[in-house]
């Protein structure tokens, strides 16, 4: 057994987290910043933070992830990181020439209290920021929230660029939440089908799923442009997908530029996608084209074709709040029973929402915000499940307990596909179903005795 020391009996823990179901804020900020065209994320702290975040993102995407660091030493930690950041800004614009530097902080610079806005203004006064270039920032203390919070903070940081000219530009802002480049592409495709002009930010498609052509561009074609971010202040409305990931940025746009917003769930599965399409249709004042109706119908068709295999199967899930909420709703909608649900990200609202979504399930549902995978594993030992859904780290539980395992979330280290094939929208729903069904049927084929092993569905 790999996790051989995990006991079945659950002991209350208040101080030690074991096998976390979250990581720290800065990586979320780095991921979000990569979704701006021509942007170099910059980590204001020790160089280890930057190295770890780049490594984790690179392993997940199998793509170059460039980011710089203030390379704090003990001296900077005592005297403050201003001189490091000023030097960094000068060096970055001279050597790498990005359009934007997106600075995020770390527990180190937050603890010593570096004021990034003041340092940025100083850089500007000293002429270190070339004409037409930008330095944006957000505060991402690692000891508050989780990687999700950091993602949200950088999205909000982007909206600081937005300006309101008083003239609406007819576009809808869509903040997709922490989803994959393929999901962002899919959201753009759906909006295109509906003929709704959108500004999607961040947008990592084209950046973290680039082609191999023999050329390396540090700043690839994709990403939301600074011009688009400025224009986001003139949009007719904002759809924020995911309360945890996207709502703060949308509300900031509302406060700052009077762009009204709606907060929706990330469109995983039928119902959440329905709400997304319906809201997009309403705010843009357009009708839903047949193409989209057909895609919806295909998903419903597959749901009905394969319903018997999902029926009352128990599922354990671990991941981030916004993703889990839509996923749980989807599983419930195909008569599965999500019985153990853990996120590492704090927020009691999460537990409440999951309880509501699973209210109709006739068995006990365990849900925990600010939980960990050690707890999830213990729950599974007490009440076994038919399917485990989590990031790559779940493979240790899946192997020990012999559970079919769907890799979903961040990070996914030894599987590919998330870069290219979406999970959002109706098409994404088809993919999720296809993968879940494959896992369940492979297991059935493995376990059925020869007498009942069958060819047909």
């Amino acid at each position, binding site marked *: 057994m790999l996790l*051989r*020391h995990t*006991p079945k009996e659950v002991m209350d*823990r208040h*101080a*030690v*987290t*074991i*096998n*976390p179901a979250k*990581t720290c*804020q*800065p*990586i979320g900020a780095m991921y979000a910043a990569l979704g701006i065209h021509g942007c170099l994320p910059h980590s204001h*702290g*020790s*160089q*280890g*933070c930057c*190295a*770890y*975040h*780049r*490594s984790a993102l*690179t392993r997940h995407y*199998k*793509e*170059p992830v*460039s980011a*710089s*660091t*203030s390379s*704090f*030493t*003990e001296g900077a930690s005592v005297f403050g990181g201003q001189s490091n*950041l000023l*030097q*960094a*800004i*000068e*060096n*970055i614009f*001279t*050597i*790498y020439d990005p359009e934007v530097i997106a600075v995020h902080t770390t*527990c*180190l610079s937050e*603890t010593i209290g570096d004021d990034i806005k003041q340092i940025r203004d100083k850089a500007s006064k000293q002429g270190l920021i070339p004409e037409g270039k930008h330095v944006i920032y957000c505060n991402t*203390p*690692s*000891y508050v929230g989780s990687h999700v919070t950091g993602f949200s903070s950088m999205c909000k940081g982007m909206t600081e660029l937005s300006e309101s000219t008083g003239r609406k530009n007819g576009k809808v802002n869509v903040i997709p939440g922490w989803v994959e480049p393929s999901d962002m592409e899919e959201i753009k495709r759906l909006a295109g089908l509906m003929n709704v002009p959108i500004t999607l930010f961040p947008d990592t498609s084209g950046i973290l799923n680039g082609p*191999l*052509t*023999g*050329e*390396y561009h540090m700043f690839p074609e994709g990403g939301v442009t600074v011009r688009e971010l400025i224009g986001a202040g003139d949009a007719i409305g904002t759809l924020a997908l995911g309360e945890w990931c996207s709502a703060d940025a949308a509300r900031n746009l509302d406060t700052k530029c009077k762009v009204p917003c709606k907060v929706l769930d990330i469109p995983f599965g039928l119902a959440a996608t329905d709400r997304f399409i319906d809201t997009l249709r309403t705010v843009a004042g357009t009708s839903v084209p047949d193409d989209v109706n057909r895609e919806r119908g295909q998903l419903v068709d597959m749901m009905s074709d394969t319903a018997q295999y999902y029926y009352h199967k128990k599922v354990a899930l671990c991941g981030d709040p916004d993703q889990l909420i839509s996923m749980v709703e989807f599983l419930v909608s195909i008569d599965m029973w999500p019985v153990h649900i853990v996120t*590492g990200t704090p927020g009691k609202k999460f537990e409440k929402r999951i309880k509501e979504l699973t209210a109709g399930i006739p068995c006990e549902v365990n849900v925990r915000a600010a939980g960990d995978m050690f707890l999830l594993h213990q729950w599974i030992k007490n009440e076994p499940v038919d399917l485990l859904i989590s990031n790559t*780290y779940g493979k*240790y539980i899946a192997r020990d307990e012999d559970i079919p395992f769907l890799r979903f979330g961040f990070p996914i280290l*030894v599987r590919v596909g998330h870069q290219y094939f979406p999970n959002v929208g109706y098409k994404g729903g088809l993919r999720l179903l296809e993968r879940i069904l494959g896992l369940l049927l492979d297991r059935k084929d493995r376990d059925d005795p020869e007498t009942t092993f069958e060819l047909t569905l």
Partner: protein
Amino acid sequence: MAIQNKPAQWTAAEVKEELLKKYPPKVARKRSHSIVINEGAAEAPEIQANVRTIPGVITMRGCTYAGCKGVIMGPTRDIVNLVHGPIGCSFYAWLTRRNQTDPGPDGENYMPYAFSTDMQDSDIIFGGEKKLKAAVQEVYDLLHPKAIAIFATCPVGLIGDDIHAVAREMKEKFGDCNVFAFSCEGYKGVSQSAGHHIANNQVFKHLVGTESNVKEGKYKINLLGEYNIGGDEFEINRVLKKCGITNVATFSGNSSYDQFCTAHLADLSCVMCHRSINYVADMMETKYGIPWIKVNFVGAEGTAKSLRKIGQYFGDKELIDRIEEVIAEEMKAVEAALAEVRPRTQGKTSMLFVGGSRAHHYQDLFHEMGMKTLAAGYEFAHRDDYEGRRVLPNLKVDADSRNIEEIVVEADPNEYRARKSEDEKEKLGQAGFKFKDYEGMIPDMEKGSLIIDDLNQYEAEKLIEIIKPDIFCAGIKEKFSIQKLGIPMKQLHSYDYGGPYAGFKGAVNFYHEIDRLLSSRIWGYMKAPWQENPELSATYVWE
């Protein structure tokens, strides 16, 4: 940027000039000392190393915590590694370094677990000692491990939590669990290297010499600085065992608590990664009288040479003969593999920018395949790893190194036992045997090659653009920007999920892996047919 056809031969001096051209003057000045050309002189040229990375330059380096928790202590399977800090540091060091371990069916193994105090803002404001103490207690109640190691992250040092006091208190309280701590805050030093040093000190202070049930064996060694990435230690141990050599303790790949504790009973320390572990080797000699030698089990020739060196040290004919038998037996497969791959690898070129010893050791493997290393450098090494230990007396201790603790050890009144008398040492010396010696990377490199310390992303890209090596070796962060250029990239930290590459079988694995990378068809598909011949000369006529 795309790679042009291989340009006219640049001289090393021209390459260096090109690398520095775009930098602001201050940066260019500083970097120029870290980029040196091997003129092939008798003495290696001086290189600037182990100095601060310039802010904003995209570096390969990590932090002190990574060197301590990630590298040295990461492979310790039966010590609970509890990270005191916000969650990230623990999360990123969780199973990401591919340290394999063999605890047996029932042995303790906490490596698949990540333990953290997950500090919150209230802990930062009011102090985290209380939470740390409670976390240590919970770990103890839950798992009853032999040992709990506590690691400090950046904010811990800043807010002044006394992790060592907590460790002492809890150790005393438990009585049957060794609790000790590492002040390895990420901002210390200039790279991972400071973390290695901090880890070495604490392992030596809290573990080595605390137990006396040593493994039986006639020829007892310790293997220092081998981390069992991809199973390297398994292969080295296989070979050692076959020769009849007993490995008392590996620092720290596939290690166990008891091995560390009995390491003082070995008779020779064999140092693989000089950078990360030479501190322990020195302390072992001073305190217990165990001499150390530099070995290198990367490369078949290096493996053979290292085994012979161990044989010569013990000076026992039975062992020396057995070692020769093993080498002869193992070399058959090595030679067969080389004969197979050399037609495709001979004359190819490589660049290696990695670690504190790997960029040197792996040149041997490339050399065996008939490949030439055009440029190399370390991520976190010091001058002695480039120029040899002869420069040690002249190394200046700067502000960043001064605050890394140096522990002073003395000969142990009970346990010190000189394994070799001065006479014996001298005799071995006359026969060409070298104790405590490492000549560094540069003397092994060809004239005209480039040596670059702390290479950054911009310089890597430029080097490839100008020189276009056939293969480039570095880490995961560098991998895909290199491969986008169509140059195969081999990770030498994590081995791209392959390995082992050490020992004889490892050498064979590596030859095949490099052959695969160089001969792969994949690199031929980057341009579509219509991109190769974009102009239409006439309309296609359907027949």
